[in-house]
């Protein structure tokens, strides 16, 4: 590897792969198809974060690449001797600091939005077990485990999340929801699914041997279908 250019090219390819991968990452399902208002807000925030940080990413990697290409040791060309520039240091301290303050604005707004449950139209309880999920509908007296959660679309659903044994985490990527299920504590989340459909997720906190098999399925149906389903469940079907 005698030539700096060849390896700088390789570096460029490596960084190119990195950048392409970062750009391609919105292939993530929740980014393409956020199913709830919260997930859409998270996506918007993500894009804002990418926009703010892309500038610094490109600047830093770009300068690195240029330096590597330009400043290879050559006979008769001595290294520069400067090693201080107070103004420059102030600039590169202040600008990222300002960028972070700017970015914290939408982050906190989105956080507040996730945090504040609107008036709930259906309350459910989610209980983690090793290694399955139990769902309860207190208003209907319905309790079941190890099968799909069923909720109506368009309704605001609030969930109390807890665990009976170890820490689990209820995670449905398309909903923008992840909430730890802690024994002895009750956490709250809410969601409002835009469209009927089947949504997949799985436990996100290591909970023992079969952590990898602790799946979540949420069937989102029309309110009418939901009423029919819950009536059947009440009858013990």
């Amino acid at each position, binding site marked *: *590897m005698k030539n*700096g250019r060849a390896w700088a090219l*390789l570096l460029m390819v*490596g*960084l190119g792969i*990195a950048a392409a*991968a970062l750009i*391609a990452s919105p*292939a*993530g*399902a929740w980014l393409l198809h956020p199913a709830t208002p*919260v997930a859409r807000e*998270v996506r918007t925030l*993500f894009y804002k*974060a*990418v926009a703010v*940080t892309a500038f*610094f*990413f490109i600047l*830093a*990697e770009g*300068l*690195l690449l240029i*330096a*590597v290409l330009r*400043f290879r*040791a050559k006979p008769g060309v001595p*290294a*520069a*001797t400067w*090693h201080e*520039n107070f103004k420059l*240091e102030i600039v*590169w301290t202040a600008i*990222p600091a300002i960028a*972070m303050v700017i*970015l914290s604005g939408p*982050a*906190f707004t989105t*956080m*507040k939005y996730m*945090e504040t449950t609107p008036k709930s139209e259906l309350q459910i309880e989610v209980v983690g077990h090793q290694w399955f999920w139990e769902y309860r509908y207190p208003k209907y007296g319905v309790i079941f485990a190890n099968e799909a959660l069923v909720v109506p679309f368009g309704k605001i659903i609030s969930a109390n999340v807890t665990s009976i044994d*170890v820490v689990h985490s209820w*995670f449905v990527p398309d909903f*923008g929801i*992840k909430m*730890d299920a*802690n*024994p*002895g504590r009750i*956490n709250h989340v809410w969601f409002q699914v835009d469209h009927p459909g089947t949504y997949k997720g*799985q*436990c*996100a*906190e*290591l909970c*023992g*041997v079969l*952590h*990898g098999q602790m799946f979540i399925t949420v069937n989102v149906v029309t309110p009418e279908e939901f009423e029919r389903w819950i009536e059947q469940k009440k009858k013990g079907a």
Partner: protein
Amino acid sequence: MEAGTVVARPGPYAEAVHPGTTPRTGILKWLLTSDHKLIGTMYIWLAFFFFAIAGAFAMVMRTQLAAPGLHVLRPEVYNQIMSLHGTFMVFFFTIPIMAGIANYVVPIQIGARDMAFPRLNAVSFWLLVPAGSLMLASLFLQGGAAAAGWTSYPPLTNRQYSPGPGVDLWILGLHLAGASSILGGINFVVTILNLRAPGMKMFKMPMFCWTVLVTQTIILIATPILAGALTMALTDRMFGTGFFQAVAGGDPVLWQHLFWFYSHPAVYIMVLPGMGMISQILPAFSGKHLFGYKGMVLATAGIGFIGFLVWGHHMFATGIDYRLRQFFSFASMVIAVPTGIKIWSWLATIWGGSLRFRTPMLFALGFIALFIIGGITGIWLALVPFDVQVHDTYFVVAHLHYVLFGGSLMAIMAGIYYWLPKISGKLYNEFWGKVHFWLTFIGMNLTFMPMHMMGMLGMPRRIYTYRPEFAIWNHIASAGAAVLGVGMTIFALNMLLSLWRGRRAPADPWNHSDETRTLEWTVSSPPPAENFHTIPVIR
């Protein structure tokens, strides 16, 4: 940093090596030594031994995950291997090897004959041997090793859910490693504050010494908290105290606070000394002073300080208070500022330099390229809503490997390639060093870049198999891991071959310019006993 006029001053341990006493030889030389150079060397060997094991664990995991539904490992074994991979890489590779390199280099760089407390130094090292061995041995006991991740969240680690001795040995191992860290911390801080050669003012110290000083201070503050938490976990298991058990009036979330109060600063324990190495290697191979030395010192101290205020960003999905999350979120974003100062200063250091692309320099430049990526995803993860989306998914695995592999490990490799001729007195094969670099750089991106996508798609971490929709990214990651495995094998062979029949290294194999030559390059390779015949005076 040239040595000026020298003053004669007998070393405090002079009698051990001076006429009248016989230096020990053979195995006893190593077993009974209190010489910082021998202890540092043993640290490095031991850390690489554990690195090989933890790396092999990673290879087995990537084999299991190469395609969905494989049965290379049973789920319970996967969890043990995964837990030990994390634990060993953190506690028995990265932290000890940083301590090892610092042990070797810092006393020479500040112009001292040894560490302040040589025997304590030996204790620090030897504690690590039973610590790692016990934990490793637990794999073969009934019930196997601890299987709750390197974070070991209770109640999963309570006796009810982890009945075997694995977790007990995990706790014991970490206790010993923690004690080793604390003793080492005292030693480093005292050494750096008190044993500097005449004229070696604090702000004349090489950057590596500064980062070690800050790191060891972090260790002194943070590690006792971990020790306390471990003791609580142990009494929960042994005597049913219930600190972390909701049914007994305790709270599992308390462990998470205590654990991360140590383990977030531990990230800086693992990366700051690496940054110090980079801050020396870049100038050495650019022929230029480090840019903005004082700014770098302040940034190091700033990262160390703010590092104590961000532990809650590991707990955004735990259900902690809204205001706490807001605070931790902002504090985490603030870390980007001093980290940025470092990145910009490194870029300014090489800018206009006369760059020589030797192996240490390649790893140092690779460090910058990769650390930027880890830093950017770190900013994203500081944003609570985005963090909640990808927390406990492979996105976090990708991020932490860009910081700890792209950061710490690349720096360690840079440091090993840089100082190995000094330590062993032998040169290594430059060509194979460069091959190692490229395989590492490419393999690293192949392995960990796809993990961002897995996380974005919703693949949780720490699962022994996965749904078919994540398959393509896992294929790529496993292929990348194979490339890394080949690279690391080449590294091991190259290093061993250099020890066996490498050419003799001169005092300064890198031909430092006068501005960048630190004291270790003014003495022979390896340095003489007690480092200096006469203590140098720094002008």
